[in-house]
């Protein structure tokens, strides 16, 4: 099952957990499963997050595939200047 790493500011909203294991084959499924597992994450995820999958930073595409052994990090939503 993919492991999702949270930035430490999020841990208070996820029962102190740094890593959450959730089912999902895409970025979108992972995010939905995260909210189901930790309802406290609903607000920050809705505010916008980027998801780094194996080092690639996915800014918005929920349909990007995720493998069970992928390295997954939640990052705050990127934007630029």
């Amino acid at each position, binding site marked *: 099952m993919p492991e999702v*790493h949270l*930035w*430490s*500011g*999020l841990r*208070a*909203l996820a029962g102190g957990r740094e890593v959450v294991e959730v089912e999902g084959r895409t970025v979108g499924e992972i995010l939905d499963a995260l909210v189901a597992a930790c309802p*406290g994450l609903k*607000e*920050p995820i*809705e*505010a*916008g997050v980027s998801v*780094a999958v*194996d*080092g*690639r*930073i*996915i*800014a*918005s*595409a929920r349909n*990007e595939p995720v493998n069970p052994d992928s*390295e997954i*990090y939640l*990052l*705050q939503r*990127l*934007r*630029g*200047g």
Partner: protein
Amino acid sequence: MALDEYRPQEGDEAYEGPREFRQVGTRPDRPDGFDKVTGRARFGADMYAPGMLHAAILRSPHAHARIVRLDTSKAEALEGVKAVVTRADFSKNVIFAPGTVGEFWNILENIMAGEKALYDGHAVAAVAATTPLIARDALKLIEVEYEILPHVTDVDEAMKPGAPVIREGAADRSVPEGMHPNVVRYHESGHGDVEAGFAEADLVIEDHFTTEATHQGYIEPHACLGTLGADGKGELWCCTQGHWYVQKVCAALLDLETANLRVTASEIGGGFGGKTTVFIEPVALALSRKAGRPVKLVMSRAEVFRATGPTASASMDIRIGMKKDGTITAAQGTFRLQGGAFPGAPMEFTAMCAFACYDLRHVRQVGYDVMTNRPKQAAYRAPGSPMAAFAVESVIDELCNRLGLDPIEVRLKNAAREGTKASYGPTYPRIGLVETLEAARAHPHYAAPLKPGQGRGISCGFWFNYGGETSVSLALSEDGSAQVMVGTPDIGGSRASMALMAAEVLGIPYENIRVTVADTGSLGYNEISHGSRVTYASGLATIKAARDAVRKLRQRAADKWGIDVEAVDWVDGCAVPSGPNAGDFDPLPLAEITKTMGATGGPISGHFEATPEGAGVSFATHIVDAEVDRETGKTRVVRYTVVQDAGKAIHPTYVEGQFQGGAAQGIGWALNEEYIYGEDGRLQNPGFLDYRIPVASDLPMIDTVIVEVPNPGHPFGVRGVGETSICPPLAAIANAVSNAAGVRLRDLPMRPSRILDELEKQRDDA
């Protein structure tokens, strides 16, 4: 991979390996050059409409005040005035929400004050009249009664107990218990155990740094021309980095259907992030709806400074531990950013970028987003990153000096590489920091002798880059020329790079391609030109759209020859049989196919719509020589070299231009530029005379070295280049000043008075 092996695979962004380019990497003249040197190019304020009215905005002279009474009746009665609007003329359906979730509410509150004026320059009403002079006269007739409230403009002051509260309930749930209500967002990230790391160090330096707010300083003030009918249909012309975003925001703030507002992006006179949001467009449209006539609204320079986004100012604590051999054992940073009277200061990027250049076992970063009585900050070139680089790279330099180590060798020793766990979490794919450091070390500048009074500074910098929603359409003409419609405004020559990429794929001359920035009614959604995304994402979409057209061209050739399309290749602008088994046919040039396209299946176009997600992070290393005048405290940059990883330079001249422009803005940020607020909370320098951006006589030539470490997420290897170049200069110059004069400046800008103060302390200590 040879050019004849183009096989479009939808959604695949992967780098296709090294190849011989025919057009990409050359330096042709930009397609819009002629218009821009003859005065024909039309920017935001250059559009006129029959029956057009001129608008002006009344702004608060107070930093923080309750609007007790607002009476516009005398202004409305003035001869020539056709409409006056206040907050009541905008949508009631835009809902407040904490943090950045309520961004549309924040924008609305920023462009037209509600119950309170939140900063000096905050809009409170607007007028449209038959001439600009009448509009200005009418503003004087608007009566506003203010109840002045206590204000705060400094980030550290705004966090203290007892500081005036800008807005209750603006904080989101990330903020720890017990913080002041002005602290509206909180970030914390990192890995390892920093205290254990510091225990391993031979030297730990902890220091405090500040940077002032600086403005993007685009020379073109915001300008627009809007028409909105009572039927809810409208047209808008404006200078913006993203007209689909303008369309979306205006529709929300005025209760319109998005598709009923067509937005056309004018030529844009600089943006640097400052034109990624909306300030005046909904105001012009609201006035137009009320007056029933087109309304032109152009900001003055003072309005640009007072009421559009500067960057955030920052207060930062950095602690870094190093071993005698230069190994960094741990790093920790606390970053407090104020972004004006709204949530959104980019403190999470400051935190995430701060240590991104280094391979660290123990790292921790904390960020606070703080509200003050200042204008709403807007993105500015790599938002949040330059201030972090200033603080972190200054401490690293100080460690190198005290341990007697070479600054480039130390950075190489600790540099992040492919496989390094980034300070912000994930593992890096292929990146180019080491290559920029090696190129800097090998550059003649690094070994050149310095004159007395001069010092040399080094700094690295990092920025993420970005993809984003992108649509491109490419249409072929009967004569074999091609028009490319992109949706990302051309801020710095991007039409040229799009044309080069299309020419490369189609195999036709660059000159036969016309690139147009399409309006919102002519193309699918495009995200703003930001995050260094244009050459990456619009470029990728242009390549894909051209390949889509090539596939159709191959099909026409296949039909003509009576063979399968898979047996047709595309080589140098011609369809050719893929091998001896495919048949013996002469190459069929593109123009031969398009000549008869109407009769062989119809017009041929190529399209691509997607959200490319393969943006590659980028790194830079800068070398600067500075000279400090010990009598006046003035610092002069005497030599400057930018080394940056572009992934692949599509049009190298414009890549160099981005490197040079970012360096120049960084030099201004380091030495001269700052928002100065008086005790009364008013901005004291809202003009180019007192807010001094670098002029030609301030700067030397700026050398550039383009490093090309391909981005794994782009077919040609493109990374963005627009932003990273502003990250290293602040620290590079501070380090040069330190080496030139023996004083360490921890507060920006390093204006002469600050340098003199430090020199005086130095004399006192001696």
